[in-house]
């Protein structure tokens, strides 16, 4: 790979190839920098804020993502038609598809992100492992690619049990099997391969040591076209459910200055190994002994980037745009100082009391929390329909404090202020977590939410008040209904109607 196939140039108009809160985030950064914005939207997103806030907006097709937000040809065509000179992919959708970055370059458009080469290498788990290991980055002990079952069975004792059978093309936990003893291995190999083949069309599997009581901690890095790199410290992302992050914070409870420096340096080496440019995230698993291992690199802006912005003061999306315009990073490593603590709760349309099932419906009311130390990144509004077409993220609630304790208190207060009606949300889950001793003491790992956290002990302290309020509203509605009917029947006697009206409103 070479730097020549990358390109950057100053641009004044940018297309945002995304929707929802991240599209809003990019549009805001562009407008702050004086860059005009072009939104694209599917049939169901005409009323969405990213359409309303952008300078121009183009319909790109039906609601299903593969017919709109994943339609590379259509998006490139809109960029050309609108005169946009650059494309920001956000996260999800096309953000980590090397073919999309390549299509942008081929069309003479700046892709706000790393090179297609970097996306491709880091998108292949095994190639990523091999590449960063050569750069001296610690990886979880495991096997190479392309071993047959016999070789895998032979390699297993050297890796040690418990171990994980993983799919090379895997993600989201699919094609992954934990194995606790040698006897369970053959079956796990079979089922992981079958699942990987079905889910990804690629049955390549490998073995990896299982790190128990692991934390998921990631490091934000930034790189420019001159080969300058900085890291912005870590984010603690261990609170997950089925591999979906729910709460992130910066910094991490377990990382001290020395460890932060080491992780940052390693993360930069991983980025440098693929000539990385723009914002990226290197994910690590951290074991009980605070040893850290490379997990993967996300070659895009992350959902949880705001917590890093709040503790470093660096606007990550603005920095992406500057770099893509051919400028140098505004900061050197010495400029980056952590200050305070930030926590992000992902507010999803799902029912925490019922297996976190997604909740479909129309949002009727939204009242955002405000006040000191509160940031809300959202793309929904009253009248917004939560559909099965896109993910269930309603918004990101981010709170800042001088200390972790202050950030938690702010988060509790903000969660209580937040009002979303029409769909069920996981706000009670976050409230329950902010009250839990394990969370407050920082003693949790990636299995905590699924294995040791329950909503069943959550009390409903306002049931009486709810009963009273519902009854008052029902009563008022009953009254109004009879009043609306009443005037039509008033032809006989106004006095009769009046006495009835008095009775009703007594």
């Amino acid at each position: 790979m070479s730097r020549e196939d990358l390109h950057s140039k100053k641009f004044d108009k940018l297309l945002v190839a995304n929707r929802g809160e991240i599209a809003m985030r990019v549009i805001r950064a562009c407008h702050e920098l004086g860059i005009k914005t072009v939104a694209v939207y599917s049939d169901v997103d005409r009323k969405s804020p990213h359409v309303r806030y952008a300078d121009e907006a183009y319909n790109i097709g039906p609601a299903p993502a593969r017919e709109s937000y994943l339609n590379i040809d259509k998006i490139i065509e809109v960029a050309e038609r609108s005169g946009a000179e650059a494309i920001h992919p956000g996260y999800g959708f096309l953000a980590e598809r090397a073919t999309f970055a390549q299509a942008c370059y081929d069309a003479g458009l700046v892709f706000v992100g790393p090179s297609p080469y970097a996306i491709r290498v880091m998108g292949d788990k095994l190639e990523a492992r091999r590449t960063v290991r050569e750069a001296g980055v610690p990886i979880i002990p495991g096997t190479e690619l392309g071993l047959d079952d016999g070789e895998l069975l032979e390699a297993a004792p050297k890796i040690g049990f418990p171990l994980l059978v993983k799919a090379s093309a895997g993600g989201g936990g699919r094609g992954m099997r934990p194995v606790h003893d040698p006897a369970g291995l053959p079956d796990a190999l079979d089922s992981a391969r079958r699942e990987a083949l079905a889910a990804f069309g690629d049955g390549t599997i490998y073995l990896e040591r299982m790190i128990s009581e692991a934390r998921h901690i990631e490091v934000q890095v930034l790189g420019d076209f001159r080969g300058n790199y900085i890291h912005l410290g870590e984010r603690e992302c261990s609170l997950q459910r089925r591999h979906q992050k729910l709460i992130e914070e910066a910094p991490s409870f377990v990382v001290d200055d020395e460890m932060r420096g080491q992780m940052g340096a390693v993360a930069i080496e991983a980025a440098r190994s693929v000539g990385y440019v723009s914002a990226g995230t290197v994910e690590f698993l951290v074991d009980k002994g605070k040893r850290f291992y490379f997990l993967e690199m996300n070659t895009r802006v992350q959902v949880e980037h705001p917590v890093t912005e709040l503790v470093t003061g660096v606007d990550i999306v603005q920095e992406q745009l500057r770099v893509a315009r051919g400028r140098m990073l505004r900061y050197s490593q010495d400029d980056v100082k952590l200050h305070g603590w930030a926590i992000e709760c992902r507010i999803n349309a799902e029912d925490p009391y019922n297996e976190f099932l997604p909740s479909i419906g129309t949002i009727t009311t939204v009242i955002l929390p405000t006040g000191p130390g509160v940031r809300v990144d959202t793309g929904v509004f009253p009248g917004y329909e939560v559909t099965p077409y896109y993910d269930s993220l309603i918004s990101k609630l981010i709170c800042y404090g001088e200390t972790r304790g202050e950030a938690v208190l702010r988060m509790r207060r903000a969660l209580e202020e937040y009002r979303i009606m029409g769909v069920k949300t996981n706000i009670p889950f976050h409230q329950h977590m902010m009250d839990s001793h394990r969370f407050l003491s920082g003693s949790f790992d990636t299995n905590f939410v699924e294995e040791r956290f329950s909503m069943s002990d959550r009390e409903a302290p306002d049931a009486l008040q709810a009963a009273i309020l519902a009854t008052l509203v029902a009563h008022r509605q009953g009254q109004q209904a009879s009043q609306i009917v009443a005037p039509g029947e008033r032809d006989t006697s106004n006095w009769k109607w009046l006495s009835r009206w008095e009775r009703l409103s007594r």
Partner: protein
Amino acid sequence: MKYISTVKGEKYVIDIDQEGRITVDEQTYEIDVQFLSDSGVLSLLLDKHSIEAIVEERDDTWEVLIHGELYTVLVQDERAFRLEKEQGTSFDVSGDAIVKSPMPGLIIDILVEAGQSVEQGEKVVILESMKMENELRSSRDGVVAHVYVSPGASVEKGQALVAISSPPSDQS
């Protein structure tokens, strides 16, 4: 006027006929309720305790959002409450519990077949929606009476997926 309001399985007898007062289970409170426009946002002062809430009607019940928590309240006046009590609660015509799709989506897998015994809470159907696989579970112990759909089928919200009848021992 007297109402019987049910929330989280708890019944409250609420009398709201007096001016500025409300009686709940024979305890009287001073109330002041203000409606903020038509958005469903209410301000309640209950013995001077200030509560902001959103109240909306949904499927014959009332949803009340207070301090982040959503309460579903069934409000019945005395007559409706008596009527329902006399009729007894009807379950389903056939006596079967129906596992319905809570949202539109794609059936990934059916984990049971007709005639099989299931326990309450047992996974019955895997439904993919909103990019996630969701596990739908049986609401009771019983026997699978009927499977209405097969893997790969697209389903609508509220569509019946699996019927579960009571265990044979109960029927005999």
